[in-house]
């Protein structure tokens, strides 16, 4: 729980930490085996594959898989005591690497991992966080993926 906008940096910290500490996500994004998650692996992921803002790749970028997320808030409810926070995840891969060795789409597998991490998660705001939207995403002619939206309530004001 935060308030007065302090939840933004808290949520970004928690989400990015959760993503780069999940071995399945690390392997799916990097497209290789990751026996142990080291600081070097996390450095490779952060700001190269996983972004804590709504990142859009340039056409010149390598053929990679990306996860980006953004936070929307400040939608007050009737009592003004709480506000509704929504978290949007943008999971997309270059068409050349989107197919996983299992035959599934890489972005679908990451979508599943992200939902495992955050659906019904109680680390954010007040109560549980729920996935409210899971839709397709077309970033450009070569990048496709999934967009996930989670919603949770948080305090509208500081706790003290």
């Amino acid at each position, binding site marked *: 729980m935060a308030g007065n906008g302090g939840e933004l*940096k*808290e949520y*970004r*910290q*928690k989400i*990015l*930490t959760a993503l*780069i*500490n999940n071995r399945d996500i690390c392997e799916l994004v990097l497209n290789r085996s990751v026996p142990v*998650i*080291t*600081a*070097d*692996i*996390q*450095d490779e992921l*952060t*700001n190269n594959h*996983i*972004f*804590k803002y709504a990142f859009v790749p340039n056409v010149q970028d390598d053929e990679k898989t990306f996860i980006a997320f953004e936070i929307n808030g400040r939608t007050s409810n009737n009592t003004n005591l709480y506000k509704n926070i929504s978290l949007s995840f943008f999971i997309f891969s270059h068409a050349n690497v989107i197919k996983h060795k299992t035959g599934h789409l890489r972005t679908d597998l990451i979508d599943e991992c992200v939902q495992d991490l955050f659906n019904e998660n109680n680390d954010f705001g007040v109560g549980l966080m729920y996935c409210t939207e899971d839709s397709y995403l077309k970033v450009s002619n070569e990048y496709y993926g999934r967009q996930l939206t989670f919603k949770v309530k948080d305090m509208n004001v500081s706790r003290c």
Partner: protein
Amino acid sequence: MTPINWDLYNARINVSGSTARERVINKVKDTISRYGSDSISCKDIKIDGVSKKLFITNTSDPYVKNFQDTEKIITSAGTLIEYADNQWLVEKLDVDDEVYPTGKLRFCNHTLNFLDSSYRPTSRPCYVENTSYGTDETGISISKVNITTGAGTYRIILPYDAQTALFDRTYADTNQNQRIMLLKKSYEITDVDFITQPGCVIITAEECERSADDNVELGIADYNRVKTTSALPRCEITYSGEPVLEYGKAAKTFTAKFYDLDGNLLETTPVWNLVMTNQSLLEFVASATEVNDIYLRVTDKRLIGEVIRIEVENEDVSVKNALEIGVVAIGG
């Protein structure tokens, strides 16, 4: 009748001194200690970084001050004092300190860079004056006609210590003339005087040609005269990426590497020490060591924005190094 206790009586009447002279001296000292701090001459100074009080009075020359050391904090001439955001050299110290020592401070208008006995760069604040024209002790021209004594002749007054005591006209090993640099110009030492002003070293130097061994950037003459200068034992701290710890990430590895005089890697066990301005915050830094590595991980967001200083040394503390690392939010 109770007999008079003469011992107690004597002790009472002699409490400020056994003679009138002693009593006068002690009364002056007592008055100074009681009311001295109210004087506008009572200044805040620092000696070796420690704050002290010293009575400083002006003279006709703004670069020279007189001082009265009522607390006897100055033990010898040549002491460097930090006063009014500048370094001052105790040029003279009166040996008569019956009431309090007095002396003269000289403004240090320059910092002389040179190599110490281990050929490492060092420096000393000093007073430099141009003596190309004849002057008397007070800096007034002796003659109305300027007498040129050389092209750029300078007199440098330095504090006497183990390193400045090594200044001489020639180097002991090669018998070459010793040289110094002042503002990118090279000067040959023509005289070194340890006698005239006890506690100080007075160097006289004349301008000379710059040598290929001079390091103009560091302002050190004959910097490359001894080729072993750059081959001192040293320690490096290596790491990947930036010198930062991101809260939320796995432990980051910092490696200490020790090298000998010839640049060979040594098998030395490092001794690590972590320092923070607020040492209590160190409980939020998880650390583990293995051979030459230290692994550091931040465990609490309260450390974001703080700086952790990693100090490392070998077991006999002859080689050490330090690195300051910032703590930032993940992805920062």
